[in-house]
């Protein structure tokens, strides 16, 4: 398996990278952990690769008020090992264990995963769950507007994602992240992530996102609306199963994925409820 021929450019400024992307069939090379295998399989044959890894100052995790700003070239492993991520967004820390394997997490970038837009990948769902803003070379895009479909984003051909901005979570927010994959490190058959805020044992703010069981990561708003008290977790999980349109493939049937989303929603909500204060 060998990739097709391409031109290679390693700019050291965003301006030069953006200018290079105006070439037809140019593609950004970030960590390369999705792009290179796709090229090795010859599923993709870009004429020019623009390697943005030599552009300084695109990899960082910075506190911003209660929230965090994370540079697009930050590697998954840096997020996994970050103390401030663990303190402020434990759900991000927990989810990183599901992103492929150590060597892939060392090299793969958050920005690359988001822009590749695999609906079964963790990051697209996590930015939606945490209501993040995606800052590019042109504008700032709310996570909810970023995906048009599987592997399809709102980015223009000459637009580069540079930073992900996570607003702080309300104090006492509980979280859950539940994923099922056939093997450790595989893409999710389905995953459900949730955050819950409680007041007097009643849910006041609920966010539920499903990964891998729809063309894009999806907020399950009907299920969110049904979750009022601890007893309603079952009803919310039932609603979650009806809100998605999963596909059948080699790994799982649509029916199985639907069933899985019900089970994972129940578990994620129960975990989030327990952690909420």
């Amino acid at each position: 398996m060998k990739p097709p021929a391409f031109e290679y450019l390693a700019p050291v400024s965003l301006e030069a990278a953006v200018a290079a992307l105006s070439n037809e069939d140019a593609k950004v090379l970030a960590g390369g952990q999705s792009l290179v295998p796709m090229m090795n399989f010859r599923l993709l044959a870009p004429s020019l690769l623009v390697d943005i890894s030599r552009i300084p100052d695109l990899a960082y995790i910075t506190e911003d008020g209660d929230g965090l700003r994370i540079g697009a070239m930050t590697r998954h492993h840096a997020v996994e090992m970050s103390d401030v991520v663990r303190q402020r967004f434990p759900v991000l820390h927990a989810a990183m264990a599901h992103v492929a394997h150590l060597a892939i997490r060392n090299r793969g970038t958050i920005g690359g995963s988001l822009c590749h837009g695999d609906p079964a990948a963790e990051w697209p769902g996590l930015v939606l769950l945490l209501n993040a803003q995606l800052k590019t070379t042109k504008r700032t895009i709310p996570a909810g507007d970023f995906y048009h479909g599987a592997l399809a984003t709102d980015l223009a051909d000459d637009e580069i994602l540079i930073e992900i901005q996570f607003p702080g979570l309300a104090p006492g927010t509980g979280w859950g992240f539940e994923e099922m994959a056939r093997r450790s490190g595989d893409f999710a058959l389905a995953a459900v992530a949730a955050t819950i805020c409680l007041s007097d044992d009643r849910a006041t703010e609920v966010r539920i996102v499903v990964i891998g069981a729809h063309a894009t990561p999806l907020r399950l708003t009907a299920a969110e609306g049904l979750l009022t008290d601890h007893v309603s977790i079952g009803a919310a999980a039932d609603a979650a199963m009806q809100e998605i349109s999963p596909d059948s493939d080699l790994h799982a049937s649509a029916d199985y994925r639907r069933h899985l989303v019900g089970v994972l929603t129940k578990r994620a909500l129960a975990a989030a409820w327990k952690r909420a204060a």
Partner: protein
Amino acid sequence: MRYLEAGKRHTVRFTLNGRAVEGDAEPRLLLSDFLRQTLGAFGTHVGCEHGSCGACTIQMDGKAVRSCLLYAVQVEGKALTTVENLATPDGLNELQAAMQKHHGLQCGFCTPGILMSLTQLREEEPNADEARIRDVLSGHICRCTGYDGIVKAALDVFGDVFGKN
């Protein structure tokens, strides 16, 4: 700004196991092939060539990476280490010796990659427990051992006193 034409060979320079090396590579040449075919460093093995099997894992700037998911031209100026770097002048290093002691390998095809990942884990999490070790090993396909020997070897050199056989 470095621009490299398609289909032409370009000089690539980096440090391999502490030694400055260079060779010529087309942009599309995978680092795994560059190591073996251009530099003759055969310790790194090539399995699936799409990042799944882990056989080609090396370290770049101290982190385990798949050499089949990097183009040789990307590592210009970087510091790479491969399995050839592990042994000391006195022989196998601690992790390698533990692999031998616990029969952590049979055919040896997956071993170089496994050693490079475990080397990073040991540096970052010297007290990693069995579950964490197994999690890291899940990024490596071994069809001989059933993994138990590898886990035992790792537990021997990591800090988990309760996991020791």
